[in-house]
């Protein structure tokens, strides 16, 4: 990574921290500790399952919300505050600005996820009193959640490169919902024939496949995640986010900033 991208990424991270993004950790800690203590009182034999399911679902949803609401403002805020002109008047290329913003936001989310992961493991230790071998799969689920953030950040940046923040939020969230139902969409494509079938198949493969990145329920039961899925998901998330970032760069390069 060249140093200009690094600076932009670091400043994006610093700005997010200054915007009190990491305050979500307080809500997360309260949610998880509350669940770990209370669930034994109101349910039967699912203390560990709830900590993993609730912990990882919260990591994922909190992160997606942060990715969308910060991602959509990354470009528009710089234009509104006119700071973008200061940045671009220096020897910084437009693509470097977009890529730097992307790395800054994903870096924020990785730090956020890392701190939340510590919370999940502490809660696990509290309810189970010790770690087991199967808890290792929780790390894989967390890794998949980070991959999910890569795609959501890239999409938020892509949409914010040509539309208003509100519309970019709507588009990104809509794609997150559709992508979470990707398996249903492919099932629908399989049972539809003719032009509709082709169209449904094309859409099913074009929208991000978030359902493959969700292994929360699986790891909650201690089931193994195949190594091949880890590899495929990694490659898929990198390629998909590269595609969205490339689209954002292309649009941003042509955008009239006057």
């Amino acid at each position, binding site marked *: 990574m060249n140093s200009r991208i690094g600076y932009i990424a670091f400043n994006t991270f610093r700005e997010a921290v200054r915007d009190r993004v990491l305050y979500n950790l307080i809500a997360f800690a309260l949610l998880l500790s509350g669940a770990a203590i209370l669930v034994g009182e109101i*349910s039967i034999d699912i203390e560990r399952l709830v900590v993993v399911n609730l912990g990882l679902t919260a990591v994922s949803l909190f992160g997606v919300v942060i990715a969308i609401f910060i991602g959509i403002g990354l470009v528009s805020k710089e234009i509104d505050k006119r700071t973008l002109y200061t940045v671009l008047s220096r020897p910084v290329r437009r693509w470097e600005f977009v890529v730097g913003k992307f790395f800054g936001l994903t870096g924020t989310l990785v730090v956020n996820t890392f701190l939340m992961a510590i919370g999940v493991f502490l809660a696990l230790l509290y309810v189970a009193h010790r770690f087991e071998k199967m808890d290792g799969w929780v790390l894989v689920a967390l890794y998949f959640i980070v991959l999910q953030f890569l795609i959501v950040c890239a999409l938020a940046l892509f949409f914010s490169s040509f539309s208003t923040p509100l519309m970019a939020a709507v588009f990104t969230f809509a794609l997150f919902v559709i992508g979470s139902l990707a398996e249903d969409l492919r099932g629908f494509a399989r049972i539809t024939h003719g032009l509709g079938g082709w169209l449904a198949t094309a859409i099913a493969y074009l929208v991000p496949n978030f359902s493959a990145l969700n292994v*929360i329920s699986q790891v909650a039961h201690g089931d193994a995640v195949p190594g091949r899925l880890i590899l495929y998901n990694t490659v898929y998330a990198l390629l998909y986010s590269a595609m969205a970032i490339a689209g954002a760069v292309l649009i941003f390069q042509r955008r009239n900033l006057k």
Partner: protein
Amino acid sequence: MRMSSTRRVNLVAVAVLLFSMAGAMLTHYGIDHLRRVPVAQEALYLRSSNALRRMCLGYTGLLADIYWTRAVQYFGEQHHSGSGDFRLLAPLLEVTTELDPKLLPAYQFGANFLAPKPPSGAGLPGAALALMKYGIEHNPDQWRLYYNLGFLYYTEFKDYARAADAFAQGAKLPVTNEYMPILAARMAQHAGEFDTARMLWFTTYQSTKEAQIRENAVEHLLALQVDEDVTRLEQVVEKYREQTGRLPASMGDLERAGFIHGTPADPKGRAYKLMPDGRIEVQNPESIFFITKGLPPGAEPPQPPRKTRADSK
């Protein structure tokens, strides 16, 4: 020293905030007491697990946990209120297990909620059987589910052949319980009722960490002990009558005749009573739940008092 105007405003704001917060809470409490109708718990708006699966965007594990907790709460509330109306229990368990087919507690405890007759359970052994079969279909490597299925066939249906088959299937699994093959054999022979039942409740005690389930297993084991003692003592009384041509007047008569040694007592340490008609009774029938023998004529088997989970902790 005069207070600055900013400080004064701050103090007033804090006072207003605290006052209005306390007032709002009190009003909320009043509203709750005006409308004491538990409408939310009584309805199951969505019975389709497929619809729920889509609505929760794939986060099915957490939703299944929520539905399972709701099923536990529903059962607890209905059981506690003594209404005997458990119509939402089976659908709640269905949704739970369809959302997460690997949620083993929902099968194990769910069948325990569904099968027994009220007031202990919902009195729906058919629904419990369907739940267990669905569980085994999705978790064929879990011996506990075969154990629960065999237990269900034995206790609710008295179907010894199917119970033996379920225990035998569970016994074949790589990870299983040491009693499974013995239970299978006992069921097949339909022999040693007390020993079989004791083994079943002991396996239940051994295979769970849940305090309430363990407590229930202990109560059943104590009741079995009483039932067995009373059966054995009544046989002894019959033998005495055959030998002497009269009923014994006291336990001392049985001891002097060499049929028993010492005064037989129930698991709580209270001596059994020999009745004038030769029956054996426990001294305090209310102190040992689930007993079917040793009760005064016409008395129902005593049931444990209804209690919430919080009471047991």
